[in-house]
C-alpha cells in the first residue's frame, strides 16, 4: 500500500524526487536521475542522486524512513560555531543510505569546503539517532567534516562537539558497511545509549583533532567490528565501554582489523592507541594488526572493563619507533582478581614487519591520512598471512534493517583486515 506524503516543511527544488510511503519494505524507488535541491525540516521517502544543500536541521520523523540512493550528496552548510548555525540530520525513524562502490552516498559540506585543511573544523552536526530510531544503515557511504557544538540533550552537555554518528537505544540497528568516516573533529561513531552494531569492511581516518575515537561505544552496545582499517585516529580506533548495569552489557568482538598510526594526536601520555576496552565492556579480541600505534590492546579505564571475559590473542604488533614497543602492552594493568595482565600471549606476533603489499611501515606515525595508492593487504609470505585464529563466531552472523541485510564475516586465518593479495 503506497501513499504519497507531502511534507509541508520540506522544500525541494529541482524536484526529481519521488515521495513514497514510509513502509519498511519499500524497495520501490523512483527512476534514478537528477536529484538535488534544498532540504529542511522533516524529510522522508527516497532521495535520488544529486546534491542537496541543507542549511538547518533535517529530521527523519519517528516511524518514517529516509532512503538515499547511490550518488546522493547531502551538503550540510554550517559554520561549526553554534548548534543553530551547524545543521544535523536527526533520526527518529530510519535512515537507509545505500551507495555503491562507484557511486557512494556522501554526508559532507558544500564542495568549496571539502579540503583536508578543514578536517577538524567540525562544520556540521552529524547523524544523530534518537531513542526511537529503528535503524541507521550506511553502506558505501562517506561521512566527513562533522563535530559542531551541540545543544543540551540526553547525550550532550551544551557546547560539546557532536559525534559524527550517534545512536541512543540498545534496539537501534547500526550498520556501517564498506563506508568511510574521515576528517572529523571529535568522536566518530558513538552508540551512547547502545545499539546493535555491525561495523565491517569500513575505513576510518583522520578522526579527532586532539582527542576522539573512531568508535566509542557505551552502555548496551552489542555486535562486531571486523575487517576495518583505522588510520590516524586521534585516540583509539575502537573503544568499547559501558557500565553494564541495567541494559545488555556492552559486548563487542573486535577481530581482523588493521590499526595504523592511532593515538598520536592525543597529547597526554598513557591513554588511547588502538583498541581499548573500558567500563564493564567485554568481547573477543583476535587477529588485529596494530602498526605504529601509541598503545596496543588495553583493558582499562577509570572504570575497568569486564577483564575476566575478554579473551584475546593472535594480535600482530609492530612499531617503527622503539619508544612505542614498550606500549604494546602496559605493564601495570591487573585484572579483577589482581592478576597482572600480560602481553605474552602465546600466539601474538611482536615487532615483526607485517609486510604490507604497498605501505611502508616507516611512514611517520603521526600522519593522519593514508598515502594515495597505499595497499594494506599482506604479501603472501607475510608473518600474519596464516597466523589468525578462527575458533570463534561473530556476535551476530548477520544484521538486517530497512530491507538491507549485512552478513558479518567470521574470523579469518590471516591477521588484519585485508588478507593477502
Amino acid at each position, binding site marked *: 500500500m503506497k501513499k504519497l506524503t507531502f511534507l509541508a516543511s520540506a522544500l525541494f527544488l529541482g524536484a526529481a524526487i519521488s515521495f513514497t510511503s514510509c513502509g519498511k519494505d519499500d524497495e520501490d524507488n523512483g527512476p534514478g536521475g537528477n536529484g538535488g535541491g534544498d532540504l529542511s525540516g522533516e524529510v522522508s521517502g527516497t532521495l535520488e542522486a544529486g546534491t542537496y544543500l541543507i542549511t538547518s536541521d533535517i529530521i527523519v520523523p519517528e516511524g518514517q524512513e529516509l532512503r538515499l540512493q547511490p550518488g546522493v550528496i547531502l551538503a550540510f552548510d554550517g559554520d561549526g*560555531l553554534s548548534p543553530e548555525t551547524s545543521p544535523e540530520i536527526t533520526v527518529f525513524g530510519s535512515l537507509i543510505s545505500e551507495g555503491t562502490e562507484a557511486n557512494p552516498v556522501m554526508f559532507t559540506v558544500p564542495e568549496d569546503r571539502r579540503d583536508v585543511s578543514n578536517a577538524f573544523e567540525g562544520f556540521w552536526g552529524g547523524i544523530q539517532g534518537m531513542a526511537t530510531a529503528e535503524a541507521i544503515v550506511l553502506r558505501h557511504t562517506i561521512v566527513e567534516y562533522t563535530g559542531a557544538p551541540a545543544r*543540551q540533550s*540526553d547525550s550532550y552537555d551544551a557546547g560539546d562537539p557532536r559525534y559524527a554518528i550517534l545512536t541512543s537505544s540498545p534496539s537501534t540497528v547500526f550498520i556501517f558497511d564498506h563506508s568511510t568516516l574521515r576528517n572529523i573533529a571529535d568522536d566518530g561513531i558513538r552508540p551512547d545509549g547502545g545499539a546493535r552494531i555491525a561495523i565491517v569492511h569500513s575505513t576510518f581516518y583522520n578522526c579527532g583533532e586532539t582527542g576522539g575515537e573512531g568508535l566509542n561505544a*557505551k552502555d548496551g552496545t552489542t555486535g562486531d567490528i571486523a575487517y576495518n582499517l583505522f588510520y590516524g585516529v586521534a585516540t583509539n580506533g575502537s573503544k568499547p565501554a559501558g557500565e553494564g548495569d541495567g541494559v545488555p552489557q556492552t559486548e563487542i568482538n573486535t577481530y581482523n582489523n588493521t590499526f595504523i598510526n592511532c593515538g598520536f594526536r592525543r*597529547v597526554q601520555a598513557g591513554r588511547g592507541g588502538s583498541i581499548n576496552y573500558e567500563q564493564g565492556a567485554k568481547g573477543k579480541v583476535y587477529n588485529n594488526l596494530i602498526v605504529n600505534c601509541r598503545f596496543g590492546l588495553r583493558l582499562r579505564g577509570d572504570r575497568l572493563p569486564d577483564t575476566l571475559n575478554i579473551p584475546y590473542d593472535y594480535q600482530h604488533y609492530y612499531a617503527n619507533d622503539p619508544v612505542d614497543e614498550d606500549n604494546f602492552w602496559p605493564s601495570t594493568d591487573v585484572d579483577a582478581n589482581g592478576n*597482572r595482565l600480560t602481553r605474552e600471549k602465546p600466539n601474538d606476533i611482536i615487532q615483526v614487519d607485517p609486510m604490507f603489499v604497498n605501505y611502508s611501515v616507516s611512514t611517520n606515525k603521526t600522519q593522519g591520512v593514508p598515502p594515495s595508492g597505499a595497499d594494506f593487504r599482506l604479501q603472501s609470505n607475510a608473518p600474519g598471512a596464516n597466523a589468525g585464529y578462527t575458533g570463534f563466531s561473530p556476535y551476530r552472523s548477520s544484521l538486517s534493517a530497512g530491507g538491507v541485510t549485512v552478513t558479518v564475516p567470521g574470523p579469518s586465518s590471516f591477521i588484519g583486515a585485508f588478507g593477502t593479495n
Partner: protein
Amino acid sequence: MFHHHGSKKQFPRAKKSWFISGLLLLSHYVFPAKFEGKVVSEDNEPLIGATVSILDLNLHITTNIDGTFSLGTLPKGTHKAYISYIGFLKQEVEITVKGENDVVFQVIKLKEDPSLLGEVVITTSYEGTSEAGARAAERNSAVVLNAVSAETIEASPDITVANVIQRVSGLTVERNANGDGQYAIVRGMNKRYNYTLVNGIKIPSPDNENRYIPLDIFPAELLDQLAVSKSLTPSMEGDAIGGVVDLRMKEAPKKKILTASMSSGFNTLFIDRPYDYFNTSAVDFQSPMQRSPSDARVATLEYYSTENLNFEQRNLNPNPFAAGTLRPNSLGSFTYGDRFKDGKLGVIVAASYQNTFRGANRIEFGISDNEFGSPNPRVSRFQDRRYSVEQERAGIHSMMDYQINKRNKIRWYNAMVHLENNETRVIWEDGLRDANLERTLENNWRAQVNRQRIYNSTLQGEHVMSDELTIDWSLVYSLATQDMPDNSQIITVSNYDTPGRELRWLVHENIVRIWEKNSDQDYASYYNFTWTPTTYKKLDLKLKAGGLVRIKRRENFFDLYSFRPNPGSQEYIPYETNYEDLSWRITNGGGTPSHVLNYQSYEDIIANYGEFQFRKNKTQFIGGVRAEHTNQGYITKNDNIPGGEQKYWSILPSLHIKHMPTGKTNIRSSYFRSISRPSFLEIIPYRRPGTEEIRPEGGNPNLRPVDAHNFDARFEYFPTSTDQILIGGFYKIINNPIEQAILAPTDPQFPQFLPPSTTIIPVNLETAINQGIEVDYMKRFTQGYFKNFGIRANYTFTDSRIESIKRTRTEITEDNYDQLTPLQRETLGIGDTTLLNVMQSRPLQGQSRHIGNLSLFYRNKKKGFNAQVSMVYTGSRIAVVSAGLDTDWWMREMIQLDLSIEKTFAKNFVAFVKIANLLDTPYELYIKRPHMPQVGINELQPNSATETLVRRDFYHRNILFGVRYNFNQ
C-alpha cells in the same frame, strides 16, 4: 521596599482598613497590669542582664542595658518577685497589683555578694546580646530552642556564623573547600531539611540549584543572637524537618553605643608552601556572548581575557614588606547605635569587613564501584590538591525603629552580606595507569571567582488595636545573587613524544571557560493577628491567626566555551608561560544558551495559620494548624525540556506543651508536622550526559515534597540566669525522603523513568526514621576553687535509618528474574550475573551517631581577662552516598580545638587572640571496604587491608589578633 514587578498576585488590600479600624479602637485601649522598674547596684549603676522572676506566675525577664525591666501581664493580688544577678545577693520583693491598669514601679538595689566583693565589673551589653539573654530566649521560647549570644560569640574563636553554629547541641557543619563550616546539619538532617532566617524573615539562597543558605557568608559580628529552633509552631514556616537557624541581628540599643574592632593574622598553611593567586581584576564579569554585538559569534580570542590566567605565587615572609610577601589577613567591624526623640527613634548601623587568606592541602583518589569481578571499590587516580583562597566577606546592616505612639511601632531593617571567594586550585594528578616509562600525569590550575550576595529589606509594623487585639506585619524584599565569571583552567598533561622521551608538559586537548550567574528575588508579606480575650485572662488565652504570601523569582545563566589547543601540541611551563602565548581554537563560539542551567524558577507560597495559646495551672499549651500552598515551577531555555510546575497544599498541625513546675524548670513535649520542598533544579526533567568520572544525572518532575511527623521532649533546668541543664529527645518519621538513586533504563522499581542509560536521579524513598537524645550543660562557677571558670558542654546521640537503593552484581535466579528489564532478558538468563537493585539500610547522609561540644572558659572580670578553649567532636558520618552496596563514603570522626584569649586595657579597649584549628585536624573520607588490588597503590593507602581512603584535607591553623573598642554611654 516592596515591589510588584511581574507578579500577578497582589497583597491583601485589606491592610489599609486595618489601620483605620486600629485607629478607631485606640480610644478603648486599656493597659494591662505590669511590674516595671530598674535594677541597680548600691552605687546606682544599672545592672544589665539581671533576672526578675515572679515564680508563682512563671514569669521571667532579664534587665535591659539601662537596668530596666517590664514584666506582665499580672493578675490582681500580691506577688513575690525575685531579683538575682551574678555576684550579687538575691533579693525578694513583694508587689501588690490593685487593678487591671496598675503599673507597679520599683527601683531595686542589689547588694554585692561579700564573697565576691570587688570582683564584678559591669559589662557593657544589652538584652539578647548577653549570655543571660540567650538563656532567657531558650527558657521563654514556645519551641525547643538553643541560642548563642553575641557575648559568647565575641569571646569565642569564631568569625563566621557557620563557625558558631557547630557549638549548638545537635548541630554539625558541612565544610567548604578551605575547611570552614558552610551548611548546618541539624540533628542528622542535612542542609536541605533546614531553613535560615534573618530576624525571623526567611531569606533566599545565592545557590544556583538549592534553597539552603551558605552560613559562611555571614560575619559573626553582626549577630545579637543565633537561635536554632528545633520545633515549629503554626506561626512559623513549615518547611524545616531538622530545624530553623535564625540570625537575630543587632537591634537599636536603649542608649548610645559605639564599638569597633580591628584585627589581623594569618594561616599557618602558607608557612609551608606558597599562596597561589591570579589577577582577579582582569576577570570579565560578563560572558563573551553578553559582551559581543547582537547575534555575533564569539569565536575570536579577543573576547577572552588572558591576564587572569597568568598564575603567580606569594610567600608568607617574616619580613612583611619584602617583595612577593603574602598580605596578612585584615578584619574590622563597627557598630553605632543610639536613640533619639525621647527614645522613640532608635537607630543602629553595624558593618563588618573580613579579608582573609585561607586554603587547604588535600589528597584525593578517583573511586569507582560495581566493577566487574569484585564488590570492592577501585582506585583509579590520585590527586594532590592545593587550594589558595582569598576570602572577602563584608556585611552591613541597619535597623531603625520608631515608636509612633504607645500603640503603634514601626521598624525598618536593611542588610547586605557579601562573600567573594577568589580561589586558585592547583592539582597534581597521577592517572595510576602507568605504561612502562610514560606516566599519565596532569596538572591543573583553576582560577575561580565566586561572588555571593544577599540583600534584605524588611519594613515591619506592630499595632495595638485594643487591649485584646494586636496586629503585626512585615513587608519584605530580598535578593540573593551569585556570580561565577570566567571559571577557567589551564590543564597540562604529561607527554613523552620527543626523541629522548623526556617529560614535557603540554596543554590539555580540551579546556573550558564558564560564566555562571543566578539570582533569587523574594517579595513577601507576613501578617499576624493576636487576640488576647480579657474574659479568659486566667487562662492567659492568646489566639493568633495570620499568614504569609511570598513570590519568588529565580534566574539562572550558564555560558560555557570550549577551547582546543591549536596546534595540538603546545608546551606550558607553570609560572613562566604567558597565557596569551598559547593559541586556541574555540569550538563553540555561540556559547551554551540551551544548557540546562539556563532556567527560570518561580515559587509562590501562600500560607495561613491559626494558633492558640493558653495556660492551665503550670502548663502552657500552644498549638494549631498551618496550611501552606506551594506553586513551584520552572521554564528552561531549551525547547527539549518543557516547563512545568507542582502545586500542592500542606496541612501542618502542631501542639506544644510546656509544663513549668517551678520557675527554673520546664518540661516540654511537642508534636509538629513539617515538610521539605524539592530543590529548584531537581524537579526539572533534564538529563546531563556523564563523563568518564561522573555518571549521567537528571531531574525528576514527579518528585514529591518530603513530609515528617516530629516528636520532641525536653527537660530544662535553669538554676541561674546563665547556667542550664537541658535533656531532650526527638523522634521523626520522615515520609518520602529525597535521595539520589541510580536508575537503569526502565528500572522496574521506577517505571516512570526512561533514561537512555543508567542515570543518577533524585527519588522519594521509603519512610525514614530519625531519633536521638540531646544533653546541654552550662555552668559558671561564681565561688570556690574554680571561681571565674565556666563550662559549656553538649552531647547528641542520633540514630537514623533509611532504606536506600543500591546496585550490586548479583547472580540471576528464578526469584530475581522478574527484576530484569526486557532488554536484559534478551541477553541474560538464570545463572548469569548482572547489576540488580538491592535495598540497604543506612543512616541519613550527614548524620553522625555521636556529636559533642566542650568549651572551658575563664572569665575574670576584675582583671578583664577571658580565655576559652573550645572543642567540637563530630562522629563519623556518611558524607557521600554511593551507588554500590557498602561503598558509601564516610567522614572519619574528628576533634577540632579552638582557642581564644582576651584582655581589657585602658578601660574601653580589649586585646584578643583567636586561634582556630589548634590540632590541625584532618578531614578524611573513606570507604569501609578494602580497594581492589592494584599495582603501586598501597603506599598511598595507609589502611589498604580494611578500608579505602578517598580524601584527606589539612587546613592548618588560623591565627588572629586584634583590638576591640567599646564605648557605651
